[in-house]
């Protein structure tokens, strides 16, 4: 019998000679497959939670209708009986159009927290509906009297200096004052602490002016240091966003009117680059002050397309305390963009009524669409006519700016 002996070295050499096997597919195809599977998975992942929610709603509906039946007119108990039946039959779709009319029409009024419990019990049927936060956070064209008001957006860090929250205020126009003058004057009137954000404006020891028509000059006294990268990043982001919201095209940095500012991480910088990538996705940020209604915050990670951005908005960014702005049970099946108009097709099983912050979700979608240079969004969905002022299957104009706040003059 023949026998051959192999040494480790020979084997190793042989193994190293094994041919390279390559994947011949186009990376785009692979990416396509992945995105498909990522979205499919998400569909599955909300099945159990939504079934659980349905069960809870059902129980609440049954219990509340029983309680109501004890001390109310026969008409009402008939109604609540109806509610139970409806709940049993349609699980998640408890809110039919007629109920929706009651809840959502009144939603057109801004900043109204409805339905309150009283109203809900009066209606009987709506008692189990999650109360939706009727607060529009963004500024829309119809909110601004363009001839008389300026929309000013300020970049304000959160208390941890981790994220920058854009805050928009409306200021009456004043004759003879430039936008820049009004902007700097308004800085002192912002109530950052009240809003649960970091005290930022007016920028301490920072002198801002506009030079060469459209360059923001930033002058700090010598000896000023920005220690810690969080502070430094907050400082540079605030400056950049300020220049942007003023429509300026460049930033020059000075120390005691000598060019350059010493920044811990970057060394001495003569100016800041304003060309950032944009295309950000908006997430929810809950401040300590208002745990109910979130701020809508663009997270500093740009996306190459809006599909990816909208997908990402379903996940929290735990490192930056940002919460998903699109709930898992809302499923965008198709995305189609053309000539400034973005059309989103929602899966008909998407649950638009059990999330309190559904209005803010729509606002987050609109603001993200704006990031990608769309000015209109159409959301295709047939189970509801509208939520608040957002009408499904019709064009919705994207907001002018996010996070409206009032200041007293």
């Amino acid at each position, binding site marked *: *019998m023949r026998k051959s002996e*192999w040494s480790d070295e020979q*084997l190793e050499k042989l193994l190293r*000679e*094994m*041919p390279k096997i390559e994947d011949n597919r186009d990376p785009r195809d692979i990416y396509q*497959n*992945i995105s498909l599977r990522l979205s499919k998975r998400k569909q599955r992942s909300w099945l159990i939670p939504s079934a659980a929610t349905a069960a809870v709603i059902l129980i609440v509906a049954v219990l509340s209708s029983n309680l109501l039946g004890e001390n109310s007119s026969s008409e009402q108990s008939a109604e609540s009986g109806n509610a139970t039946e409806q709940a049993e039959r349609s699980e998640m779709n408890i809110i039919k159009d007629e109920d929706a009319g009651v809840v959502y029409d009144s939603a057109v009024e801004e900043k109204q927290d409805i339905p309150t419990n009283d109203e809900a019990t009066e209606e009987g049927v709506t008692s189990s509906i999650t109360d939706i936060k009727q607060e529009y956070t963004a500024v829309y064209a119809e909110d601004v009297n363009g001839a008389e008001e300026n929309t000013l957006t300020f970049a304000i860090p959160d208390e941890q200096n981790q994220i920058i929250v854009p805050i928009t205020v409306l200021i009456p126009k004043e004759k003879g004052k430039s936008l820049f003058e009004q902007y700097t004057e308004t800085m002192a009137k912002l109530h950052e602490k009240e809003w649960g954000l970091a005290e930022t404006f007016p920028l301490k020891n920072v002198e801002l002016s506009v030079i060469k028509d459209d360059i923001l000059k930033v002058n700090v006294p010598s000896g000023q240091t920005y220690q810690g990268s969080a502070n430094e990043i907050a400082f540079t982001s605030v400056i950049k966003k300020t220049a942007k919201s003023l429509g300026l095209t460049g930033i020059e940095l000075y120390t005691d009117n000598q060019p350059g500012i010493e920044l811990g991480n970057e060394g001495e910088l003569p100016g800041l680059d304003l060309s950032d990538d944009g295309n950000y996705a908006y997430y929810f940020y809950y401040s300590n002050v208002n745990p109910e209604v979130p701020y809508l915050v663009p997270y500093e990670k740009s*996306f190459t397309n809006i599909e990816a951005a909208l997908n990402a908005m379903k996940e929290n960014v735990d490192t930056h305390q940002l919460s998903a702005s699109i709930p898992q049970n809302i499923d965008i099946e198709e995305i189609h963009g053309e000539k400034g108009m973005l059309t989103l097709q929602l899966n008909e099983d998407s649950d638009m009524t059990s999330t309190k912050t559904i209005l803010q979700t729509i606002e987050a979608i609109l603001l993200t669409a704006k990031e990608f240079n769309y000015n209109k969004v159409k959301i295709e969905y047939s189970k509801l006519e509208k939520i608040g002022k957002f009408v499904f299957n019709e064009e919705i104009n994207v907001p002018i700016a996010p996070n409206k706040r009032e200041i007293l003059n």
Partner: protein
Amino acid sequence: MDSVFDELYSKYHHDVFQFIFYMVKNREQAEDLVQEVYIRVLKSYDRFEGKSSEKTWLFSIARNVAIDYFRKQKGWRQKIAEKFDWTTGQIKDDSPIPEEIALQNEEISLIYQCLDHCTVDQRMVIILRYIQELTIIETAEALGWTESKVKTTQHRALKVLKKEMEERMAKEGTTSEKIRVER
């Protein structure tokens, strides 16, 4: 396309694909699994802490994907085996030898076949160490093992391969002289 995907693809796609291919020995399966790797990576990319290198991190995810695959595979194979009362030894992966391997010399395709006789752990070490040419330290990182475990597993794997190669060559009486290698 997602920028993260883009970057990972250009840097590591072929390495990861090759690793998985040699693990499962089936092109279609490997194509599927490599997608699974990306899905897991993209989901957890934010959590990548840079403790290990990106490359070994990617391999560690690929390893988990491969192991999960074998686990599932084993599940239904064993079920069938029980049903038909086959001995497990008879149930072998009979996926055809891919073109790339077939074009090589006999020894290569022989060792390719012999890889089946290694355990999953042993095969992973062999692929990472020799085909991907990772160092012992990198391999240890990717597999989440100690370096000494990598070394012993590697040693055992080579031993299994050696034994298999020798047996097969002895069996094939027609084996030509050129693949007989004397020590």
